[in-house]
């Protein structure tokens, strides 16, 4: 919302050691898109650049991949500089390096992502389910998740196939 006032001041491009491009994206602010192999490298670079607070890890179930979004802040600066790291893992092999060694707060967020979307985090210290029982089958936030007990919300206002099945 207010990232306009800090353009030019932060100099993200120089700070980042791996020459990964940080671009400004509408609605999100500064965004760094990396391949999944580079996530650890990018995270270390950002951490060294002073981004000390990771506030969420979100997974989005796209048709053939799972998009992961991390948001990190530099809490020490007066005007907040936030960077969103985006990466993608294929659905056939949803594995990615865990960021918990870098930001401890990633621990539960990654567990949640594993629980609800089935992304495996390599090197996670405590890879259990977060909300669901340990013996739960399936990953509920995936679009193709089916459960007999699930009551599908019937609504006439739908324009997305599969919503009112």
């Amino acid at each position, binding site marked *: 919302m207010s990232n306009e006032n800090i353009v030019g001041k932060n100099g993200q491009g120089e700070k980042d050691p791996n020459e990964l491009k940080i671009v400004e994206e509408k*609605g999100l602010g500064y965004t760094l898109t990396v391949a999944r192999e580079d996530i650890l490298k990018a995270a270390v670079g950002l951490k060294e650049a002073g981004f000390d607070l990771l506030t969420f890890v979100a997974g989005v179930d796209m048709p053939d991949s799972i998009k992961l979004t991390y948001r990190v802040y530099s809490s020490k600066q007066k005007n907040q500089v936030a960077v969103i790291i985006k990466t993608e893992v294929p659905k056939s092999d949803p594995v990615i390096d865990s960021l918990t060694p870098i930001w*401890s707060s990633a621990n*539960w967020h990654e567990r949640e992502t594993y629980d609800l979307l089935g992304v495996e985090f390599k090197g996670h210290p405590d890879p259990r389910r977060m909300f669901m029982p340990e013996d739960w089958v399936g990953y509920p936030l995936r679009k193709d998740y089916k459960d007999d007990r699930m009551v599908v*919300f019937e609504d006439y206002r739908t*324009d997305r196939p599969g919503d009112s099945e």
Partner: protein
Amino acid sequence: MSKIEETKVSKANLAELEKELAFDETRESEPTLKTEELVLNFGPQHPSAHGVLRAIFNLDGEVVTKIVPYIGYLHRCFEKIAEKRTYSQFMPFTDRMDYVSSMHNGWAYAMTVEKLADIKVPERAEYLRVIFAEFQRIASHLLFLATTATEAGALSPFFYFFDERERILWLFERLCGARLTYNYVRIGGVSADLPDGWLEDALAFINRLEKTILEYDKLLLGGYIFKKRMKGVAPFSAERALDWGITGPPLRSTGIPYDIRRSDPYSVYPRMDFDVVIKDNGDNYDRVCIRSDEIKQSLKILKQAIEQLPDGPIIADGVAKDIRPPAGEAFAHVESSRGDLGYYIVSDGSIKPYRVKIQGPSFANLQAFPAIAEGAYLGDVVLTLGTLDPVFGEVDR
């Protein structure tokens, strides 16, 4: 107490016992007292589980040596539900997230959708949102102080704080008819304008609380036993807090002025004159005091907001009932009573959000609970959980 745990313990003990016996033989000269840790199941139905936290405590006498929290008892699949509802249909669900400060949740969600759909909110609506968000912050902090007092064993302050909170709820009730889950904020504005005479009553309440909060400070925070109980207990440094992802009052109590209202300003907060309260020690006492000080700052904001409140429409023109934002992503966050509350929405251009991710501050704050509280006395562990102030509607979502 569950029987399953106990049987597990006894099975595991057989091997351990043999080891221990062998160990004792080698050191016969030293008198050893055989002690065993008590495994205590705390919650999910416990008076101070703050909702439905379940944790396994390992107790060495009165000292808690290990904490393993289990969450998910209040998981209501809101993120999944959001994918099946239209943008405005999801609005009431946000109130059920952090039900102690539902106004902030509604606001954060509305802000994200507005960002996504490029909706300009009228100024009066922004001011009304600020007014109610600050009232909500006061109400939430009063509830925090009340429950903390009760957990510390002082039962009377509970009623004093609830009395004040009740007055805020009356104001809310007059405004939108609800006392807890308001559904007041709408995408593009707010749902109702102020009733007649509301502002006068609100000002009267603000003036009243300005005086009474000082008395409560003396009664609760200034008390000898309370200080003795809270000071220096479960402290953490700023670095550790950041590493754990703690935000909100617990982070500010370590000396970091991280407040979204200032560091990533939104709405009309840049026009308000207020201080971000910080404390130095990051112990239980600071975490309580900072809430009381924030109430005072919120009162300051409220006075200014009521003074500056402009006339005009309360909801943006031309906001369709079924919003259809362009495909894209947006993230917006507000400073809720508990910290950095954000919504991340992915839109595929249809009538319903493709994915809604809620970044709840309680979730991150609770994550640090085992690390903070391990090694403290049982009574202090309960208080530490209280000062982190998790709301389980938001933790489990």
